[in-house]
């Protein structure tokens, strides 16, 4: 039996308050959540039904010029510059005048980029010492999963976690989020971001979103540019696809009429546009994702899918997933919008508060070391049965 009420809230209140700090990539997010203390949580697995209330969810994204990615050093500087302002703003929005009221401060322990993670954890340690609030280190992927479960109320879904740094198909089993399939090289978001860089399209609001919009404008949807399809069992590989589509885009920009896929060999007329490339890339990558998700669902006999992570707000991906689920009996898709899909502080607060309620807090600052490599299946999920 899971008892989420073992550790009562501070000062005899009937609710928990948690602050979450997230900064594993180019977004700095601060979120504050509130869990009511309910008797029904004392003896059952209701971790997807905490009746969470979001008091504030603020975020600032470090946006680079077109054709450039975000470098760790610059991203870390961005986070350092914004950390205090965002925490102040979050506290103000939540209406918390005395921050020592907080039950816990949660930070991203990993995985992510080293320098940004580090600047955020320094902030977390400072706040913890200043306000005398215990710290909780959260796995970024578990944060996404717990957030998705709480928002969509999906009880035990197969999780497709797709973002700039991760591509994993995950299912829960025996106190562990097991990875069934994952990328063998680069993540899907990374693949899309790097293609956007080749195309020199803006990174605002996000490169993946701009590719999605270009793909909608594709006029020739019947005729797909053929790309490699690299599903290996339950895993997939995307670096080869990126290399190939990159070379096509370069040929297109350089007007290399020798490329017969792009230009008519007799007249030299252009056959393929940038929009066509974006459309084909999306169709190809998402078909691979949906296929491995379907395999995992068949494997664990589940009919629910939860899509989390930044790429999860892509409407086309959600459509394809829904279409796959319709062909399975009682299939359901759960997805969230950009407020929760894209990295944010609330998800860290949600997963961290669950850990806190199970008594998993950090007592010594020496344990707050962040790590770039922290796999989803290394976390002991005490709050589920």
């Amino acid at each position, binding site marked *: 039996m899971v008892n989420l009420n073992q550790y009562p809230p501070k000062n005899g209140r009937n609710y928990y308050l948690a602050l979450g700090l997230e900064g594993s990539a180019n977004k700095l997010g601060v979120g504050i959540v509130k869990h009511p203390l309910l008797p029904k949580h004392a003896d059952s697995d209701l971790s997807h039904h905490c009746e969470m209330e979001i008091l504030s969810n603020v975020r600032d994204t470090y946006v680079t010029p077109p054709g450039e990615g975000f470098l760790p050093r610059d991203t870390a500087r961005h986070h350092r510059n914004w950390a205090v302002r965002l925490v102040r703003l979050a506290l103000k929005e939540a209406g918390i005048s005395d921050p020592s009221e907080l039950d816990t401060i949660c930070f991203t322990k990993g995985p992510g980029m080293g320098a940004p993670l580090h600047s955020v954890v320094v902030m977390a340690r400072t706040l913890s010492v200043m306000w005398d609030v215990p710290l909780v280190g959260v796995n970024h992927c578990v944060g996404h999963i717990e957030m998705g479960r709480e928002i969509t109320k999906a009880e035990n879904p197969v999780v497709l976690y797709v973002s700039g740094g991760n591509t994993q198909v995950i299912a829960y089993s025996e106190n562990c989020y097991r990875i069934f399939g*994952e990328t063998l090289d680069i993540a899907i978001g990374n693949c899309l971001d790097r293609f956007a860089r080749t195309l020199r399209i803006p990174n605002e609001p996000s490169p993946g979103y701009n590719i999605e919009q270009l793909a909608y404008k594709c006029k020739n949807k019947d005729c797909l540019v053929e790309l490699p399809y690299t599903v290996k069992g339950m895993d997939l590989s995307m670096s080869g696809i990126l290399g190939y589509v990159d070379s096509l885009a370069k040929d297109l920009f350089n007007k290399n009429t020798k490329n017969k896929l792009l230009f008519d060999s007799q007249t030299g007329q252009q056959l393929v546009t940038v929009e066509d490339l974006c459309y084909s890339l999306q*169709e190809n990558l998402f078909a691979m994702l949906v296929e491995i998700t379907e395999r995992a669902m068949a494997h664990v006999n589940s009919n629910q899918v939860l899509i989390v992570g930044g790429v999860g707000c892509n409407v086309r991906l959600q459509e394809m997933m829904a279409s796959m689920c319709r062909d399975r009996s009682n299939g359901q898709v759960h997805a969230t919008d950009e407020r929760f899909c894209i990295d944010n502080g609330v998800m860290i607060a949600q997963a961290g508060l669950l850990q806190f309620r199970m008594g998993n807090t950090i007592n010594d600052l020496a344990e707050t070391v962040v790590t770039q*490599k922290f796999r989803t299946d290394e976390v002991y999920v005490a709050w589920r049965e």
Partner: protein
Amino acid sequence: MSQEVIDQIAAYLTSNIPIVPISQGAEAVVFTTNVHPYEPINAKTSPNDQSTKTKYVIKYRPHKKYRHPSIDRALTKHRTLGESKILAKLSQLPGLHVPKLIATDVYNGCIWIEFLGEDLPDSFGFSNLKNYLWMHASDPYCDDVKKTLIKVGHQIGLLHWNDYCHGDLTTSNVVLHQDNGHWEPYLIDFGLGSTSTLVEDKGVDLYVLERAIISTHSRFAAKYNEWIMQGFRSVYEDEGKKGQQKMKDILKRFEEVRLRGRKRSMLG
């Protein structure tokens, strides 16, 4: 199972070929039928015809609506063709037992293969290795089980010795077929099969099977795996010095795969 998929294949096969669905995976649906695709009906080839002899399996890869039609067409063709080719090649290898390929239609994603196995007594279900081991759970270490598992290991050894990999070895993907009162194991479902000279792929194959046995028959798994490996080694040991060396490489890699899990660790 979705009715739409059944309607799809029923429309393709027409009402002359009645089908009974038996299982659904992520990629394909499997049916049985009594009709042979090209032999005349009622032609009894074998004099002592058993009921299983007239049964055939149809493996159908349905159209997936979520993916772009041109991706779907290319994949269905590629995978059906790949599986048919592997089955055809494997059936020519001496000593290796796989179901016979009868017909294939790569554009419609349809494969006809020979039906193997039967129903086990006392409602233990179909005679795949999983149900067979459960049937013998009361006397797990009897001679019959030992002999069968050594044979299973022998089949996998032959497959690997000829540089083929199965890709999805589980106890439900081994079917037992009665032959003169003995159970002969047949490997089925080569949907993820490939030719490979890499020790990595073979090590992963063995590891996947070991995990499958541990998770479905955990109490007796140690002995079961030992017997399977005994059969596996016997193939390589018969091949002299070269076989010994190859086996050493595979077993070493198997050990490594076991330590790190199926996935290569993403560190570094």
